[in-house]
């Protein structure tokens, strides 16, 4: 479904991604693990079209999206949950959802979102800037579902959250994947991804160093020590 071939991405003259390749099949839930500055966010942003790789190819469902604009990629069927949550501050929770809505037969609607995430219904008239961190994260995860994507990109969904909230977000994401949605998650927290992802890539200094099933990665203490902040 998603193929990333050997992409090199630069911010100005800084060579951030030095040949990243990964792939994801339909229905899979995979993660990119690495510490701060490893290149996780840049990888996600490259896929989403915020920054275009200087070389290499990104393909989604067979189409080359390497140089597309983010809104075009969103229309293709990829949903984006950014780092730092980023809720539209002056819009209410309900508006935050409605503003993105793209109707699909039998797909996500505001009503369905409220059923799956009852907390959001309770705060539906509250302005984005008055939400707590946990509420914002739930909204940030729920919001791109309104475009009825086939692939969801999450950038560090557990960052900055209290442990109990992290657990809840993990469960929510797991719930969503049951609908057949494919997920690619960039994360620092390996334990968080254990329950949700089936496969992972270890990234460090802009390169993929290891990949494998979550079980085998978990057992490899050496990799964990070397590439992931403990």
């Amino acid at each position, binding site marked *: 479904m998603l193929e990333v071939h050997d992409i090199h991405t630069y911010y100005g003259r800084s060579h951030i991604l030095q040949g990243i390749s990964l792939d994801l099949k339909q229905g899979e839930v995979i993660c990119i693990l690495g510490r701060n500055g490893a290149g996780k966010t840049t990888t996600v942003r490259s896929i989403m079209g915020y920054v275009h790789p200087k070389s290499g190819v990104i393909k989604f469902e067979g189409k080359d999206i390497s140089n597309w604009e*983010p*809104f075009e990629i969103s229309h293709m069927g990829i949903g984006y949950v950014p780092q730092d949550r980023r809720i539209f501050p002056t*819009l209410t929770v309900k508006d935050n959802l409605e*503003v993105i809505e793209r109707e699909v037969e039998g797909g996500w609607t505001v009503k369905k979102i409220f059923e799956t995430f009852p907390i959001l219904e309770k705060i539906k008239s509250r302005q984005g800037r008055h939400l707590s961190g946990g509420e914002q994260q739930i909204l940030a995860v729920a919001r791109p579902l309104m475009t009825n994507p086939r692939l969801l990109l999450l950038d560090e969904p557990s960052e900055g959250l209290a442990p109990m909230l992290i657990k809840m977000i993990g469960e929510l994401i797991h719930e969503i994947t049951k609908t057949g949605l494919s997920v690619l998650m960039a994360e620092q927290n390996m334990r968080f991804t254990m329950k949700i992802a089936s496969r992972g890539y270890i990234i460090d200094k802009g390169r993929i160093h290891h990949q494998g099933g979550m079980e085998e990665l978990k057992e490899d203490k050496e990799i964990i020590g070397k590439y992931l902040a403990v």
Partner: protein
Amino acid sequence: MGPYLFRKRDALLEYRVFVHFFLNGLATGTCYFLLAAGLNLIFGVLGIFNFAHGAFFMIGAYLSYQIIFWTDNFWLSILIVPLAVAGIGIIVERFLIRHTYRINVNFQLLLTFGLILVIEDLIRIIWGVHWCTVQEAEILRGVLQIMGGAYPIYNLFYTGVGALVFVSLWFFLNKTRYGKKVIAASSDRELANGLGINVPRLYTSVFGLGCALAGLMGVFHGPLVNINLDMGHHYILNAFAVVVIGGLGSIKGAYISALILGQLEAYFSIN
């Protein structure tokens, strides 16, 4: 106006003067608001330093003069001019201003200032340097007796137009899906883009709407003044002030501060 000693038989006269001043203040306030309304969208919401907004207003005034000259129909110019000015604005945004978003804002200032010069010269070439005058529709001419004094009907109509524009814009921005998309894109342009909102096209259409409002003001303001090449300059700084005082992006704030400024000018201005 120095201190007054009110005497009984002059009392009614003084009240009438105050009422007329108040009405003038409303009209002046409406004048500030009309230009600020479009600028509020372009500068307050989108963050574009459009100095040429006054020039678009001027285009609207001259175009309305031309249409009335040809057809003698005030209402027709209300219909056509905003669309025409919006069209010009859309072209300008799409091909010129769009390139300045990702670079230093000074380029936007320079570009829009250059636009003023170009627009003024084009107007000068087409219509010449002499003042043009325009008359409002027949039905709006004449006066109304307010408290025993004659007051121009058109001033009241003008104030009404301002109120209508305010209510429509407020509703449009806060209650429609499109308006909420505009708010979303202005508060976080990058995120809106990634969630599927076609931000470039949104910016173009909002810019067009702002220019349409400037053109609309050109139509309604024409009968009140002599249409001349200085029109844009005269009001643009006040418009920026109103947008800032009222709060960038707040249409309610712009209307209130415009009305207050209008009242201040009616009572305390020395010209």
